[in-house]
């Protein structure tokens, strides 16, 4: 089947393309950009004039809650939300229940996603068995089963020698480790940034040093073991500066930031708004601005949603008893486009941070519109203004601190393997 996407502005940062061109798709693959290949049989035309055509977005971290927490969300509900937001590939952390520490579990998740037929899911394997921080997992077998990297999710590995061995073992097979750097003793029972707002509200704080101490430890071990490592969702300017220095030194490290840390600070908690309960915590305005700057400087190479859908009750509790996390798939692109509107990023830089840069971190063949690539494509209309209403989110999780925010730009079509899996119908 031949599809022509006509008249759109193509932005494909991996190939340095930003131009009004047509895209030709045949049998699920991109067969031509700008001009039709000889044998192209046009059966379907998608009018994209006035719209932006870019690679399908890649979200480095999204929890789909399956298996184990289906009362919050499922692979079907969350991949449906993903494609409605232009996201064609998700990477899910191993903290499912049971965790992804066996090849069977890794395969089960990918197969479930494949059967649903919406977004792709690439799992991260557990770095230690049952995420307990004691015994290593069968990393080579998990790699074989499709895990794109290894992580202990939010569970800290308290024993530094276990972390060292896990890194050494991963390095032996050229695997990437994904780190959530947080010192568990300094974090203690903290739920907000240790600063002005936590002091005012009497909420136990997580000091900035909980992040920097752990990043320093992890960098020392990365240097010694030579493992390729990715730092997940950094929250402080100081930690980002440490990553920048390490990259300058030539260490094989990268780092990402969540879309919400680029827009919110501790002050958004106001009077105990549990929708702003996230981990790592929202820090101060200086940190928010430092994270934005690090996107420009290149210390941060991806923006992710850190999607965590919750049932309503999870947030209807006193702040420190409420569950952390934001339902973020559907605000990933809108919040990133806001940075373009605010002139922090160019549109090309913004799209790179959501497409080929996260693809490079995951080591997957996606995130570009090269001829021969699978036709995973996001088309959005940058002119549509809309206001976020939590009840209208497609995700099962309606937990968002962005209720009432005004956004510009809306996904109109999402294609996976040339199939239109989402088409926007204006209300």
């Amino acid at each position, binding site marked *: 089947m031949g599809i022509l996407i006509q008249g759109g502005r193509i932005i494909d940062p991996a190939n340095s393309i930003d131009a009004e061109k047509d895209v030709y798709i045949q049998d699920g693959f991109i067969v031509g950009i700008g001009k039709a290949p000889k044998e192209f049989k046009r059966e379907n035309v998608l009018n994209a004039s006035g719209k932006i055509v870019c690679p399908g977005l890649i979200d480095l971290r999204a929890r789909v809650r399956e298996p184990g927490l289906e009362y919050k969300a499922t692979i079907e509900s969350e991949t449906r939300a993903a494609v409605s937001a232009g996201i064609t590939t998700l990477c899910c952390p191993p903290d499912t229940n049971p965790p992804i520490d066996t090849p069977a579990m890794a395969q089960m998740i990918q197969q479930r996603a494949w059967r649903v037929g919406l977004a792709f899911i690439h799992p991260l394997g557990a770095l230690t068995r049952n995420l307990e921080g004691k015994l290593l997992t069968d990393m080579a077998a998990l790699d074989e089963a499709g895990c794109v990297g290894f992580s202990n999710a939010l569970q800290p590995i308290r024993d530094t020698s276990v972390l060292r061995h896990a890194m050494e073992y991963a390095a032996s097979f050229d695997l990437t480790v994904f780190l959530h750097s947080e010192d568990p003793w300094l974090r203690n029972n903290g739920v907000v940034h*240790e*600063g*002005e707002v*936590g*002091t*005012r*509200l*009497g*909420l*136990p*704080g997580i*000091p900035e040093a909980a992040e920097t101490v752990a990043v320093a430890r992890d960098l020392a071990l990365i240097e010694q073991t030579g493992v390729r490592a990715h730092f997940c969702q950094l929250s402080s300017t100081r930690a980002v500066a440490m990553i920048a220095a390490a990259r300058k030194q030539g260490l094989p490290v990268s780092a990402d930031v969540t879309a919400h840390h680029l827009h919110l600070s501790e002050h958004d908690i*106001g*009077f*105990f*708004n*549990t929708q702003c309960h996230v981990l790592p915590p929202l820090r101060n305005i200086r940190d928010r601005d430092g994270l934005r700057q690090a996107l420009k400087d290149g210390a941060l190479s991806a923006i992710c949603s850190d999607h965590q859908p919750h049932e309503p*009750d999870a947030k*209807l*509790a*006193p*702040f*420190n*008893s409420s569950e952390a996390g934001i339902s973020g798939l559907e605000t990933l692109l809108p919040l990133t486009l806001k940075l373009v509107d605010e002139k922090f990023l160019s549109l090309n830089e913004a799209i790179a941070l959501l497409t080929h840069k996260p693809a490079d971190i995951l080591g997957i063949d996606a995130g570009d519109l090269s001829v021969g690539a699978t036709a995973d494509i996001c088309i959005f209309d940058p002119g549509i203004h809309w206001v976020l209403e939590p009840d209208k989110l497609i995700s099962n999780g309606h937990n968002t601190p962005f209720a009432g925010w005004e956004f510009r730009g809306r996904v109109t079509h999402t294609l996976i393997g040339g199939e239109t899996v989402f088409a926007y119908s204006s209300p």
Partner: protein
Amino acid sequence: MTRGDLQLDSQGRLRHFLTIEGLQRQTILKILDTAESFISVGEREIKKVPLLRGQTVVNLFFESSTRTRTTFEIAAKRLSADVININTDFSATNKGETLLDTVRNLEAMRTDLFVIRHPDSGAAYLIAGYVPAHVHIINAGDGRHAHPTQAMLDMFTIRRYKGSFENLRFAIVGDVLHSRVARSQIHALTTLGAAEVRVIAPKTLLPMDVEKLGVQVFTDMRTGLDGVDVILMLRLQFERMSGALIPSAQEYFNLYGLTREKLAYAKKDAIVMHPGPMNRGLEIESAVADGSQSVILPQVTNGIAVRMAIMALILGGQP
């Protein structure tokens, strides 16, 4: 749930009493004036006024308390309300019921006012955000966040002894980090125009950026007490030692215990306050606690009138 003015209605009248933060000076003074008018009720032979007859007050305490709960109970009874006490040990929350479910069930029994104490900061806010308009909430202490009625009775006591707040220096001494009382006192004193509010403690017992609340920080008690008019002591819980926040009771008492020797650094007519319960020999010497400058027992007495005033203002019965 997230709005700071949740405790005020559209006319700016008190609907709930959750925190001192954000209250206008006039609102605080109105509570103090109303409390003055209730002082005499406690001195009568028949200590009752019919203001809240037919109203139901539930004291819902998820944390143990003797004096706060008792003074709330007495205050409600003196206003002729029907009072029910519910303590966490007997409550359904131990059976897995959520906090909001507990409140909804009690609310279904036509409660007019909840007095709530809870170990989590923000619990009273959460509940106030979900009850219907005719149900009122008084925060009797939430986690480390606020204990606004305690701060109000402290202000009442200060005004009775000192006349006003302007031109006075205040020192809050002890475990500010874990203290909801200290946070509410700071908001009250800064709103009422105190000349200076100091906090005195080792850094392990001070929250980050505490100076942004409008206080001066001292780690040395003698310097901190120098020239102050009012000393507000805080209770130190013994478990702070196991948390490696202070080394020993002895060292704490030597450095931060209020003794006659340290009290001499304050103004001669300085008054000494404590929210109770006191640890004699840990944060305060008995000779000071029972001495002529101590107003600790009057604080307790005043607590009843102040709580009557807050209940009366919230439930709309003007005295």
